[in-house]
């Protein structure tokens, strides 16, 4: 109980730190986003028009910093993130449209990478000395240290350019109408193929290696030796005894990584022009669309925090030792 309160307290403190960081950072920036917007439109700007636009779009820069901070906290708590300057729409609307694409592409692929990676790691560790165990570490150590964007570029080059079945940008083609119809769904899946493949290639290595390492340690434990001595069949030992215990740290790591889904989305979506959360974060940063950037950053942080909390709870549920140890 005390542990849970401790974690909750940490959650709140971190949340507050992020919210405040979000508030402070844009105000350190020189210039004004309105100036940039006007510069896009011929640069024929008067001070009066500038001020009028600022008021119209709700950019309040003349109150004291503390007042602005309170307003900001209040607005955030109410879910009012303001209007996105580049989209001229409420930020919540922009995010609402984008978040499903990110969750869909990267969430699903991460789950896949986890499941596949864990299975391969288990099998590899079980067959110590086999060819799989021999190639696993070097191959996957290398694949997990390749920068993602390079794998993406290679895929675009080798596959996407020559085969139109593997589109290299966008979430779906504009000819299809969104909705639950078969052409749309196939189109979305087609567009997700290359980015998903790139994510899989770069992230699966981490899961394989972690799983393998923990499995190896567990396999050296006494109770596994006992199980073998008892004559239990190999696969049963592998899954029921060894893997179950080895999976614990992996599982909490996985829960954490779901939070990082949103964070890792940035490079994927930039390279493949996928209109998800990461893409809009980049767009907002490049165009100084602070309302959008703040909201997205907050969203990502909250997601990670929630995931970590969930991971902690999951570990406490699955592993009784953590409950008593503290």
């Amino acid at each position, binding site marked *: 109980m005390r542990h849970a309160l401790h974690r909750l307290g940490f959650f709140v403190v971190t949340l507050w730190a992020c919210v405040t960081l979000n508030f402070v950072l844009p105000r350190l920036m020189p210039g004004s986003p309105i100036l940039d917007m006007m510069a896009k439109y011929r640069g024929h700007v008067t001070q009066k028009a500038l001020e009028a636009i600022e008021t119209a779009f709700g950019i309040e820069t003349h109150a004291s910093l503390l007042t602005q901070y309170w307003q900001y906290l209040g607005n955030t708590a109410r879910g009012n993130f303001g209007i996105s300057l580049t989209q001229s729409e409420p930020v919540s609307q922009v995010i609402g449209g984008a978040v499903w694409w990110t969750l869909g592409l990267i969430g699903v692929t991460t789950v896949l990478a986890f499941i596949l990676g864990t299975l391969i790691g288990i099998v590899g560790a079980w067959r110590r000395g086999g060819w799989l165990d021999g190639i696993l570490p070097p191959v996957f150590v290398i694949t997990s240290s390749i920068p993602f964007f390079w794998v993406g570029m290679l895929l675009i080059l080798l596959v996407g350019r020559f085969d139109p079945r593997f589109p290299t940008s966008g979430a779906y083609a504009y000819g299809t109408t969104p909705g639950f119809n078969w052409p749309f769904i196939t189109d979305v899946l087609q567009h997700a193929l290359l980015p998903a493949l790139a994510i899989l290639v770069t992230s699966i290595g981490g899961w394989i290696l972690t799983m393998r390492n923990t499995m190896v340690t567990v396999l050296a434990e006494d109770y596994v030796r006992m199980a073998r001595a008892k004559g239990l069949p190999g696969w049963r030992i592998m899954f029921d005894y060894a893997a179950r215990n080895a999976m614990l740290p992996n599982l909490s790591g996985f829960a954490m990584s779901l939070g990082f889904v*949103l964070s890792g989305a940035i490079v994927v979506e930039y390279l493949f022009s996928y209109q998800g959360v990461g893409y809009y*974060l*980049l767009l907002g940063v490049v165009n100084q669309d602070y309302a959008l950037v703040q909201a997205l950053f907050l969203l990502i942080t909250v997601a990670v925090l929630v995931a970590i909390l969930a991971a902690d709870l999951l570990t406490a549920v699955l592993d009784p030792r953590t409950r008593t140890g503290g």
Partner: protein
Amino acid sequence: MATMQIPAGAGQAPEAGLPGMPGSAGTASERAAGRIWRAVKSNKKALTGAIILLLFVIMAIIPGQIAHDPPQAFIYGRSLGPSAQHLLGTTPSGQDIFAQVIWGARETLIIALVSGLLSTLLSMIMGIGAAYLGGWWDNGLNLITDILLVIPTFPLLIVIISYYPHSSLIPLIAVLVITGYSYGARQLRAEALSLRNRDFLEAARVRGERRFYIIFVEIIPSMTSLIMAVFLGTAVYNVIAAATLQFIGFGDPNSLSWGTMLYWAENGEALQTGQYLWAIAPGLCIALLGAAFALLNYAFDEIGNPALQRVKLTRRRHSPPWRIRAERAR
């Protein structure tokens, strides 16, 4: 990321053969260094990683001897294919790609090594310092580290670097260090905490040694391999993060590094216009550098935890097939 297994039997007499543990002869750091060197030599993965790294270091130190063309001069023919004069061809602006790759090693390595070192240093201060000082220091430093651990690093990187975009190395390195140190700090703190109650430290305290002496002379040398692992792990992360930032366009486009080359290649639509080498060469180098650090890192893992090492299955007749004899891999 590397996970160090703490050898069982904490508090017992240190066993010879385990790296980082003080023995009877010589100082702890000397013996650790010697052990590490022997371990690297014998481990194939470590050797490969070390050789790759060495090659890049040579490229960074004497680029002029390897590539005779100036890397940034706009004096050659535009968009030429590979030839004897231009091993990798030229850019659409008339620069020699091979020279850029060779010269690019310098800045890329500097970023990786400097940010890796600084990050490890910060991890040590925040991790070991917190563990040893204990009390409110521990709570305070830990809170900062945990917050930074939890805030998603890449978005934070992007948001912060957007305030210094297109600028020189110093903001880039500073941002990488601040956002990347926390994982290592956590690992080091955990290890330092476990070491805190060991006999040899108790002996030092009883002897009346000062705190800093204990930290620098006793604790840190005992954690050499973990510190190495933290450094290598951070180096991998920094190489990739820096290259990615530069690729997206947040680096200094006038600088000469592999990430910047990829930025120009992407802007020049290298892949779409058939100038494949322009994009592939620097990307391959980044991948190799990351792989080198990662291989060394993994090898250090194995050195620290012998159970992870490559084993050879030996089948003896009349023996149950699942009997495994572990041998140190040659």
